[in-house]
């Protein structure tokens, strides 16, 4: 920077325009005044901002803020848009509320609407455990298949969604697999025998040491009460059918032994207090039409 006296007005010889006096590598910045229109707009925006402060929420206070003359808020905008959407869906939602589950599945228009609503609600509430498409995972039921521990009719599904399984709700579904091994009801050798017997029910391989008669005896004495003498299960207690190809936890022997030893009893929450009736209905239709319904 060359030494410049700020009181001396520097003038650029080439253009005749005054400079700011700042110099970089021999280049000086011209001091060109702002265009009038630019200044007019600047002052106009300042005036505008004063009005803005009174009309819109603007100044933060200690625990709140100034609300503006018309009480506008962006949250209010969202709420009114949501209400408009609700009003738009209103006729279909009330039609859904009034129709029976069977009616909904017979009416293509209601069915499409219920499935769309159900899909959204499923994504929000059910997908964390059952997967985005209801495909389930180990310990969490696949809702696309035809095996239903507590019944696969639309009404059964509705009750399961509303009140849950082992959820603590008075109307919830109850019944769990006891911990035969941990509680000392069966010895570890007996657990192994009955696990092999369970695998044999659905035609899976058994170990060489497996004694079918002994396994059958243990099964009859301990398991048949819930799972039935034929092992076909019982939807009243949620006891799974042991003869089919679907395994909630896995069909390998170690997993079956684990279940026999420590018991099973995971929880499906009751949704009746969290979701409204129409949403539960839409969810029911969605799950029922995923492909698993009976």
């Amino acid at each position, binding site marked *: 920077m060359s030494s410049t006296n700020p009181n001396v007005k520097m003038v650029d010889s080439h253009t005749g325009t005054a400079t700011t006096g700042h110099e970089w590598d021999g280049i000086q910045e011209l001091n060109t005044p702002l265009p009038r229109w630019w200044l007019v707009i600047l002052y106009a925006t300042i005036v505008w901002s004063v009005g803005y402060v009174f009309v819109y929420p603007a100044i933060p206070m200690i625990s709140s803020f100034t609300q503006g003359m018309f009480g506008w808020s962006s949250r209010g905008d969202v709420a009114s848009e949501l209400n408009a959407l609700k009003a738009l869906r209103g006729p279909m939602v009330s039609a859904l509320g009034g129709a029976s589950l069977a009616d909904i*599945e*017979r009416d*293509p228009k209601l*069915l*499409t609407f219920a*499935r769309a609503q159900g899909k959204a609600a499923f994504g929000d509430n059910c997908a964390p455990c059952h*997967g*985005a*498409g*209801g*495909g*389930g995972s180990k310990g969490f039921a*696949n809702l*696309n*298949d*035809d*095996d239903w521990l507590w019944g696969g009719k639309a009404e059964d599904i509705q009750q399961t969604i509303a009140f849950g399984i082992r959820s603590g709700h008075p109307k919830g579904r109850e019944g769990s697999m006891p911990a035969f091994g941990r509680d000392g009801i069966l010895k570890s050798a007996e657990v192994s025998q009955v696990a092999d017997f369970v695998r044999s029910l659905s035609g899976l391989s058994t170990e060489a040491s497996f004694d079918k008669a002994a396994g059958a005896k243990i099964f009859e004495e301990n398991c048949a009460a819930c799972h039935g003498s034929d092992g076909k299960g019982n939807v009243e207690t949620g006891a799974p*059918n042991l003869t*089919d*190809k*679907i395994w909630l936890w896995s069909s390998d022997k170690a997993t079956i032994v684990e279940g026999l030893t420590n018991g099973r009893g995971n929880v499906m929450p009751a949704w009746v207090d969290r979701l409204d009736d129409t949403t539960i209905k839409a969810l029911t239709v969605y799950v029922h*039409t*995923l*492909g*698993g319904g009976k």
Partner: protein
Amino acid sequence: MSVKQIQAREAALEQSGVETPLYAPRQKIYPQNVAGRFRNIKWAILFLTLGVYYFLPFARWDRGLDAPSQAVLVDLEHRRFYFFFIEIWPQEFYYLTGLLIIAALTLFLMNAVAGRLWCGYLCPQTVWTDLFLWIERLTEGDRRERMQNADKPWNLESFARATLKHWGWLMIAWWTGGAWVLYFTDAPTLVYELATFSAPFTAYLWILILTVTTYFFAGHMREQVCTYMCPWPRIQAALTDEWALNVTYRYDRGEPRGSVKKAAVLRTAGKPAGDCVDCNQCFNVCPTGVDIRDGLQIDCIQCGLCIDACDSVMTKIGRPTGLIGYDTDIIVKRRQECKPELPVKMVRARTILYAGLIAVIGVVMLYALVTRSSISLSILHDRNPLFVRLSDGSIRNAYTLRVANKYGGAREFSIRLDRFDAAHLEVVGAQKGPDGWPVIKVGPDQTLESRILVSIAADSHPPRSQDIRFILKDLAGGESAVAKDHFISSDEKHD
């Protein structure tokens, strides 16, 4: 100002040592009225194109109760485009692409045949400017009068005339915007709504936008739009060749120019004399202020009005017409060099190519349009889970099927599979037909989404993934559509 003039001025300025200004103010142009063949052609085109534009929205076309009855309608709300018997869905917008390609090629072909036919006769900028000039002549008089009054101070009469002119311009501009919005909704209804101030805000906004742009472009900007704003003059200059016909001053006949008397003296003395009497009529009538005698230039939109002006002068002085006409520079030059006359080469590689391409694309589009299906079918395999094992060990895949019925009545379709029999297919919520395949009903001009379940027995040892085809068949008409997907049976990569 022509390119030559600008160049000359720049050269002069450079010599004098004064820096060239960065911009030049517009030189106001006062095109004079002219009568003749090309003027009549331009009037005819103006009436035809503006007539179609202003009145087409009111044309009706019966499509039944469920569809609009406007012949040409861009229904943005319901995402349909209607053009007489054609109804285009958003996914068929490639027809518009084809149409745009044909339009571009037609522009190229016109350019290869006779230069700026588009600019001179068909371009909306030219057509509306022509109309606005007509209003200007009606209210403020022809060239001479307007030039005389331009420098005079305002008086009551000139103010009244100017007011009338701008009012006329605004009326046309307003109608231009008004006709535009009528293409997007039922025209008679919208006219009623506009008249009773109950039309949607967007309609008023678009009318305002088009009124303002029409008023400024055709009233005030005029030839500046063509010379400075429009890219086509540049593009066409690069596309053209020496054989394209252009509005040309036949200097072989015209030069040396001079007055009628001077020419007569020269002729009696047996000396050469040109036909051009230097009357400047070609320049006076030019809407872009070009002197055609300076040769081909970028400002010239080739509207042919100078041909009319020159022809009428030639008729008056008893010389043959056609001193200015559609010609090429090659031919004129050969004539001047007294070489044998060359014919106009209309059939050339590029005209054949453009015409051929237009024909091919046109035929392909027409074929696609005539044979297009009124059903559209799409299928989407469930992503999660890809397949489901059922309790008896059989395997099931689920799909989302979307059927669009592009027909003005409800239709029933049966859904079939190839290589799988009816027992394997279930459509959620649909009844089975008499032959065992499910039947779905789709409303007029609507789409329907259905959930489809396909299952195969456990003991069939299916491959990890196999092709599956869904066949949709119209029960009444017999029309069908096919969609392909996969049937997945295992997670394993190798079977």
